[in-house]
């Protein structure tokens, strides 16, 4: 007998049943998400949301005949691609125009970008992803508000507050090497994630270039 099999059997006793599902969804439905999900009243947005919902219903209707004919469905397959709505753009200028606030390319990165992707998620989070020829990465995010938009909630070994010109950023990393900087100017929240990380001195120089 395998340990994996026994452990899986034990864990199978823990499931999200109907009552738990309802409790969790009720809490989520009534939770205050306004801090990060500001809704701008552009007229097209309500039609876009409506169109998205209609698309889901139409997709369901198209799948329905096949499913009801008893075609086998794989209930053990991997997770479905359910990433948030993200639109890709060709430049920082195009991203700025789409998202409604200015977004600039990061200057003075510690590597020469071999590829750059400009993304707007949910119509409110701007993101620029840079990749280097040797696997280096930089992810820059900007959104309205002051909440941390980096998506990192883990506890970091090294945390340091850094002042670079008018900008005060929180550096996060491990062993004196920082991979993440988070800051705000009061109107917008920004974060920059670098792999590999940098020393505090090099972050100071980098953030000074991006005031």
């Amino acid at each position: 007998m395998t340990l994996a099999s026994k452990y899986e059997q034990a864990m199978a006793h823990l499931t999200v049943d109907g009552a738990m599902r309802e409790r969790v969804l009720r809490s989520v439905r009534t939770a205050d998400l306004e801090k990060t999900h500001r809704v701008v009243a552009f007229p097209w947005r309500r039609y876009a949301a409506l169109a998205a919902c209609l698309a889901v219903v139409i997709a369901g209707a198209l799948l329905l005949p096949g499913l009801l004919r008893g075609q086998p469905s794989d209930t053990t397959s991997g997770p479905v691609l359910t990433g948030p709505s993200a639109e890709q753009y060709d430049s920082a200028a195009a991203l700025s125009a789409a998202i409604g606030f200015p977004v600039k390319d990061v200057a003075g990165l510690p590597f020469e970008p071999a590829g750059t992707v400009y993304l707007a998620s949910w119509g409110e989070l701007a993101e620029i992803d840079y990749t280097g020829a040797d696997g280096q990465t930089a992810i820059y995010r900007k959104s309205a508000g002051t909440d941390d938009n980096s998506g990192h909630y883990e506890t970091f070994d090294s945390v340091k507050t850094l002042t670079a010109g008018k900008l005060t950023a929180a550096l996060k990393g491990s062993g004196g090497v920082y991979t993440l900087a988070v800051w705000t100017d009061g109107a917008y929240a920004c974060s920059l994630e670098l792999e590999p990380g940098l020393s505090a001195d090099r972050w100071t120089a980098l953030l000074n270039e991006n005031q």
Partner: protein
Amino acid sequence: MEWDLDVRLNGQTLWQALSGAARCLIAALAALFAAGPAEASAEAARAALNFRAEKILDTYGNSLLRLAYSYLHNRSDAEEVLQDTLLQFLKTAPSFESGEHEKAWLLRVAANLSKNRIRYNRVRDADELDEELAADGREDLSFVWEAVRSLPEPYRETVHLFYEEGLSTAQIAAVLHANEATVRSHLTRARARLRDILKEAYDFGE
């Protein structure tokens, strides 16, 4: 014509999937026709978020609940971590290259929320799963769970992600933001401890 009411799509029944979509549509229509433009836009956006929360819960709910339970040994605490993970996801709206990355992100957040909870709240002594397994007469499963539960946290989380989620050591390293060599070392040591406890009665799938 006989209708198969148990048709399943990605772990949820067809009717759950369609009723979720219908609720989204109804909320959007209600928002469109019953409120002003700004309110309608806000309500439609919120309806879309609620629909998204349902999808995530139905796709990853069991994995997140089990991972949280492996840290906290309590259903109620694990349920709160599941709920908080969902809220973090909706608030942050991160973008992912694939479903695999999305799941890794969710597991990482659930693991960190669980660890934070351990820091601030003592893990309860009573273990509901252990009691349930014993009540079902599954002492063999109870024995395995107790052995895994007795491991130090770094070993336990590695064992859970390896055996329950079927992740490779590289994927576990990505979820836990750890070095892969460290993960391999934790897995090896965890297996050695489990072998001592379980008296080599099991194949460890090495």
